[in-house]
């Protein structure tokens, strides 16, 4: 990110001056509102003051982030719709209290700091001073702003712990569900077939042992046994594909996605730029994600063509699936899409869907990960 120019910094200082006045008003409003809460009227003042404070704080957070070249997320906890619950949530959010402290800083010392920067530029004689001092001064001001406005290390860690707890619980649930499904598939499928098989063979044995037995019957039973074996093998194959598709084990994500594309009814162009292989669990999650996306393209999109692009940029593996279909895909509608999101969440991955009515649909799956085993870059023609 390029450093902001001195003039831009001074512009920010000017904005700080104007907003400092607003901050003063908001500080007074908040304090008065807080005091008047005892007679409930204060609630009305706070309904105005809190969102306005957050708005002003957001503006400062963005300016400070730009000055320091940082990425500062909005730190507030979600506010419920119900007014009383909202008030309680706001009061319990430590960020609200820090905002109040920041208001005081922004309309007092902070305001003076900003004033210095602007005056240095306006009083022509002090230009050399301005040239030298404006950057460190504004950096100082931004550091203090963020000290108030960005979440602290503890809050960040608390949030992280919360996310990890949620995704871990989901991952454990999901794994348990998969095991149950697997047990059921094996029980109803191959296991039952093998029982039938041993029965056929037992009867055939009996027919052969009996001197008065019917050899044609024994032969029929053996033929049945062979058919049952084939069915059992077919079912086992389906179960194995569901656990971990063999082509993914053989070829990794790039090859497996190509294989998926090849089996689509519409032409799917695959573009791969991966210098290595991601960890196996990430490959598996992304593969299942792409499979789900392509299944949706086949079922709902009415598309004439689709594209899958795999790239690794800035420590993130990015898979983009686009189609020229009718659009209108709702990521919150089907269990399939929710499943992808949940799987990716276990790896801090995300899914973004853009699908306006009329199309085109673009689905971006992203997972932060490192690649291993350097391999040559591969690219393929339409499959």
């Amino acid at each position, binding site marked *: 990110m390029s450093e902001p120019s001195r003039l831009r910094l001074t512009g920010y200082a000017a904005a700080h001056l104007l907003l400092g006045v607003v901050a003063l008003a908001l500080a007074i409003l908040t304090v008065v509102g807080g005091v008047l809460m005892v007679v409930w009227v204060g609630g009305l003042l706070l309904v105005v003051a809190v969102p306005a404070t957050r708005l002003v704080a957001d503006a400062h957070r963005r300016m400070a982030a730009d000055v320091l070249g940082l990425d500062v997320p909005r730190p507030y906890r979600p506010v419920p719709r119900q007014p009383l619950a909202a008030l309680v949530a706001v009061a319990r959010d430590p960020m609200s209290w820090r905002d109040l402290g920041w208001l005081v800083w922004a309309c007092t010392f902070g305001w003076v700091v900003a004033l210095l920067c602007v005056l240095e530029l306006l009083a022509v004689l002090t230009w050399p001073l301005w040239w030298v001092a404006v950057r460190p001064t504004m950096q100082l001001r931004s550091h203090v702003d963020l000290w108030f406005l960005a979440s602290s290390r503890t809050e960040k860690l608390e949030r992280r712990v919360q996310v990890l707890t949620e995704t871990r619980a989901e991952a454990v649930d999901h794994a348990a569900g998969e095991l149950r499904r697997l047990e059921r598939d094996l029980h109803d499928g191959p296991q039952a077939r093998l029982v039938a098989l041993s029965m056929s063979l037992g009867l055939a044995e009996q027919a052969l042992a009996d001197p008065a037995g019917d050899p044609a019957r024994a032969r029929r039973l053996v033929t049945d046994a*062979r058919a049952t*074996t*084939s069915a059992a*093998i*077919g079912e086992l*194959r389906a179960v*194995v*594909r569901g656990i971990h598709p*063999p*082509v993914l*084990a*053989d*070829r990794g994500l790039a*090859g497996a996605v*190509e*294989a998926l594309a*090849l*089996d*689509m*009814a*519409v*032409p799917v162009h695959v573009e791969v730029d991966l210098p290595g292989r991601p960890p196996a669990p990430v490959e598996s999650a992304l593969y299942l994600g792409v499979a789900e996306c392509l299944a949706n393209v086949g079922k709902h999109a009415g598309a004439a063509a689709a594209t899958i692009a795999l790239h690794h940029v800035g420590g993130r593996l990015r898979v983009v699936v686009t189609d020229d279909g009718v659009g209108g895909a709702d990521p919150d509608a089907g269990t399939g899409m929710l499943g992808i999101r949940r799987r990716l969440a276990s790896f801090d991955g995300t899914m973004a869907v853009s699908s306006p009515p009329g199309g085109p649909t673009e689905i971006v799956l992203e997972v932060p990960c490192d690649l291993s085993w350097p391999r040559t870059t591969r690219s393929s023609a339409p499959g």
Partner: protein
Amino acid sequence: MRLVLAEDHALLRAGMTQLLESNGFTVLHAVADGDALAEVLRDPDADAAVVDVRLPPSQTDEGLRAAIAVRAQRPGFPVMVISQYVEHLYARELLASGEGGVGYLLKDRVSDVAEFVDGVRRVAAGGTVLDPEVVAAIMARRRERPLDRLTPREREVLALMAEGRSNAAIAGHLVVTEKAVAKHINGIFSKLDLPPADDDHRRVRAVLAWLHL
């Protein structure tokens, strides 16, 4: 006919060897991993190979890679690839060189001994034998433009040709006369603009055209 066999499970290797030898083949070498396979494929006495896709040491698609490699060195060297599962992608890679003499079947097709042995013979003679599952996957795609010219019946015949069936077998399967099958096949050849050549070679070309589109 002298064969090379690669299969990592000792039981299956012994079973396959027995099955092939009792049907008139000679198994020159029966090996268990990819390195040994690459070694024995250099044997000039070998007429064809029967290869499992998944082999040690990597336990991925060693066998398939070895099959593709040997056909790069010995063009048209017949290889029957067997696997616990079939992938359209792998069928395409096996046939990418544009030569016949390729088989790709699910392992459990071995249970129909007569048909499997017949498949190996067809592959050794330069034909193509694809698993019905692969054929079904290709049929499911509806973008084969030049193949749109084929009638539904001709497409059925072509799919059965890809599975490596003879005219008589196709006729039996579709419950028509062998003469009708021959007529359909000629229709396919002319619609796919296949240059005149001997019949076996044109059959392979037709299947390749179908697979590559």
